[in-house]
């Protein structure tokens, strides 16, 4: 059995998990969630079965961390000094699309992120988020449909 050094897991999957955290939580909390995800993954890594799907395993951990972050925020709402007219525009070229993604309902946003950004099949997404495979497929389809409506492709950077 070949045991992969954890550094290789970070290199191969780190950017993917960061995009997923960014999509699910937004830029402010994405890096915290990423760090907590990989620290938890490092802790559990020696016990991970050799045949495990590392991608799905990491998204599962990230999903739980995202729920923790969201719950913590609900308990301790942060006062916001000045609410900007429109968020984003921080030099990230696709911030409009990220914004559109942020406005999706939770189920759709996670389904879109886990399927299109993490590349997981709907069956695995259903295992992570709960619910059926069909529900995960529908949520992702509805999410993409809304994204298309709110983010016309003519204006998209390609």
């Amino acid at each position, binding site marked *: *059995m*070949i*045991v*992969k*050094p*954890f*550094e*290789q897991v*970070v*290199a191969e999957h*780190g*950017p993917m998990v*960061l*995009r997923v955290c*960014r*999509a699910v939580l937004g830029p402010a909390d994405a*890096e915290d969630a*990423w*760090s907590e995800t*990989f*620290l938890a993954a*490092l*802790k559990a*890594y*020696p016990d991970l079965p050799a045949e495990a799907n590392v991608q799905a395993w990491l998204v599962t951990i990230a999903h739980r961390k995202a729920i923790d972050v969201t719950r913590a925020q609900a308990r301790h709402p942060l006062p916001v000094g000045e609410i900007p007219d429109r968020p984003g525009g921080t030099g*990230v*070229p*696709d911030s409009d*699309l*990220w914004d559109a*993604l942020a406005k999706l309902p939770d189920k759709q946003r996670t389904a*879109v992120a886990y399927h*299109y*950004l993490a590349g997981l099949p709907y069956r695995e997404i259903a295992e992570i988020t709960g619910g059926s495979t069909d529900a995960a497929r529908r949520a992702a389809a509805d999410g*993409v449909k809304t*994204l*298309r409506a709110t*983010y016309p*492709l003519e204006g*998209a*950077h*390609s």
Partner: protein
Amino acid sequence: MIDIIPSLPVAYEVLPDRLHERLTTAAEREGLLDVAYRTLDTPVGSLLLAATPQGLVKVAFDRQDHEAVLADLASAISPRILRAPARLDLVVRQLDEYFTGGRRAFDVPLDFRLARGFRLSVLEHLPEIAYGHTESYAQVATAAGSPKAVRAVGTACALNPLPVVVPCHRVVRSDGSYGQYAGGEEAKRTLLTMEAA
């Protein structure tokens, strides 16, 4: 169907360095960093340096294939391995001093867990061979307590997990020729020439 999605991933194609650093710092703090490693450019090529919390555990030459060495460390010690240079600061400083001629002996914590038995007793003797001096495989065998184990000394030197720092390059054939070296004969020549200067 997914035409809109390719626009999304652009933001993070590579992991920001600060996130990697944050992970290694947290891992160290939580006691989850079983093996920290980095590479160092030296006159004998790029050296891979790896340390457990106990000390330096592996030094590997470029020709030993760093990827393969890390995979070996993952199965021999722990897969909790991260590129985390901070733990290697002291040994890097001493190696820099050694390669610029300002240091003749290393004083860093060593973790000998990758060597056992007779091989370990050979390695424990090696630092007694002074900088700029050499011993033959036969002399080392006697010093390690088994005068007849000349071939085993050769094996112990060839498999030395901590070359350069544990100076197996100071062991040469009795006819004075260099003999084998994990870093290649050229690396051995470079080290001995440097020390003789």
